[in-house]
């Protein structure tokens, strides 16, 4: 094969007899972005996933907001830093990542929340009612003040991961084994692996004792009476909610954040809260069809920050908490550099969690 400066060719050339053989366990957003990062570096990647498809764990229920500035309100600066890198990654890696910015609103009586939000972050402009209506005509006359973060974006997590999966298989020769747990002893299988990248989320609690689950509940609504171009956050002292347009009249509404690790069970109170916040954004949502409700458990470390941990020839990528799509690509790039270059990233590899 001719050597050319083209990345794909270099990658293919590298993936020869001496290519690093990497097994990635878990095909959520962490596993798939890791597969991409390692494949781009020339590794021979196999993904092992216990479900029958990719992105069916908590990635399935993600909001898909790529909003590093907004997250800066409640998360540490490192999340925003990882977020900026990831935002660029997604816009290049998959189609349909509109950079429409995001909008943060509060009902009149919760305006102090909006002020508080603005004090904690940057990258926004204040809008008045006319400014809000210019961006989202359907919200005309409903809000007096808002914050607009023009550089942010959003994506549809399920479509994005499907596109990424196709890309991995078609362009990067990544193999995927479904309905396998990744730890079964196959004859000689382990000998053929140079490195395992464990991206199992909360299931990795057997190895990462300080992981905990934080439950999130969401719903999808369908309405033709209202359209939004961008993700909208509705602030409330107790029940902050976001609404992400998914196209074709679909809206994802999320997400609760509850300190427990039960999967799949959506409570009445949570739905009531999510729906009433959505209704407060626009009464048309009151007539919308409920298409889906769902819940899953996010993996989190005590400081709610993601971590890479290298133990022997396993790298653990975990603790993405509410920041799966926002942090995974940036972590994946770092994980590959740890493996290939012996790099060390204290911001995500420091074991000190401000321990309990």
């Amino acid at each position, binding site marked *: 094969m001719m050597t050319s400066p083209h990345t794909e060719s270099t990658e293919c050339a590298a993936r020869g007899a001496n290519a690093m053989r990497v097994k990635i366990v878990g095909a959520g957003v962490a596993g798939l972005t890791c597969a991409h990062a390692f494949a781009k570096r020339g590794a021979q990647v196999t993904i092992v996933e216990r479900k029958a498809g990719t992105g069916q764990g908590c990635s399935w229920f993600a909001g898909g907001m790529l909003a590093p500035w907004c997250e800066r309100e409640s998360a540490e600066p490192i999340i925003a830093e990882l977020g900026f890198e990831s935002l660029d990654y997604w816009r290049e890696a998959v189609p349909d990542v509109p950079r429409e910015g995001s909008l943060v609103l509060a009902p009149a009586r919760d305006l102090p929340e909006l002020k508080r939000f603005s004090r904690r972050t940057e990258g926004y402009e204040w809008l008045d009612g006319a400014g809000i209506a210019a961006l989202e005509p359907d919200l005309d006359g409903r809000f007096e003040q808002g914050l607009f973060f023009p550089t942010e974006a959003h994506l549809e997590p399920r479509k994005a991961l499907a596109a990424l999966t196709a890309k991995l298989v078609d362009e990067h020769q990544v193999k995927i084994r479904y309905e396998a747990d990744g730890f079964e002893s196959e004859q000689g299988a382990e000998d053929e692996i140079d490195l395992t990248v464990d991206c199992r989320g909360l299931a990795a609690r057997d190895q990462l004792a300080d992981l905990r689950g934080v*439950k999130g509940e969401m719903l999808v609504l369908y309405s033709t009476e209202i359209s939004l171009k961008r993700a909208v956050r509705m602030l409330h*002292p107790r029940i902050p909610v976001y609404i992400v347009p998914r196209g074709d009249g679909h809206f994802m509404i999320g997400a609760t954040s509850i*300190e427990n*690790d039960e999967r799949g069970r959506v409570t009445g109170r949570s739905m009531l809260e999510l729906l009433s916040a959505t209704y407060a954004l626009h009464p048309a949502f009151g007539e919308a069809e409920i298409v889906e409700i769902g819940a899953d458990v996010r993996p989190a470390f*005590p*400081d709610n920050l993601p971590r890479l941990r290298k133990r022997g020839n396993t790298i653990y990528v975990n603790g993405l908490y509410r920041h799966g799509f926002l942090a995974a690509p940036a972590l994946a790039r770092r994980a590959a550099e740890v493996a290939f270059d012996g790099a060390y990233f204290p911001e995500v590899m420091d074991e000190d969690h*401000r321990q309990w």
Partner: protein
Amino acid sequence: MDAMTNNPGTLADPVEFYGTKVNSRLLLGTAQYPSPAILSEAIRASGAEIVTVSLRRESGAAKAGQSFWQLIRDLGVKVLPNTAGCKTVKEAVTTAEMARELFGTPWVKLEVIGEDDTLQPDVFGLVEAARILSRDGFEVFPYTTEDLVVAEKLIGAGCEVLMPWGAPIGSGRGLNNPYGLRSLRAHFPGVPLVVDAGVGVPSHAAAAMEMGYDAVLLNTAVAKAGDPVRMARAFARAIEAGREAVLADPMEVRDMAAPSTPVMGRAVLGQ
């Protein structure tokens, strides 16, 4: 009283709840922090010896909140489980029973919420639930209003601590009814009184302590501060300052100026 001979020091000035003495007069809630790690640091910085934990929502179907509760237990502080979010007597009683089983403590901060917008206590349900729980061996810390008659009934129901609100939960408005809070203090000189809810900034907490309150319970003001750890420390200092001030016997308020330096050499030296 001779303050010199009494020599009250804040360190040796414990407050007693149901026979348990604690030195810190700051009780902290554990909700809404950016992360459990920051919560833990804030508690350490505050010196709080008692933290409240909510159970209603976190418990899920099968006590699924175990990992968070374990984190709380590991803090090594006393846990005061609460019934936050409960709206009926039955719900509050069930939650309290679960809390006793989970945390192995008879203590419960009893909340029965009557109104969603202000999270105002339903004082009728509160008294009823307090009676049921006290009879069942619980040591109840009722979250109430500053109403004297309700307070009487809570004492009658078996409560040995009262926790009147400063202002609605999470509002940060401080002490909405200083007169009412003062009357309550005067009315129940021997009952430990804790201002619970509505406290926004350390000066609110100091004011409650200066009124002679025994302790202050807060959550949002610390959890939602830009730097919760630093805010926790600020509250600890304010509460210590307020307590120290009470022990120091503050001066009386006067209508006229009273110069601290004698006005010598003036024509009028005062009437």
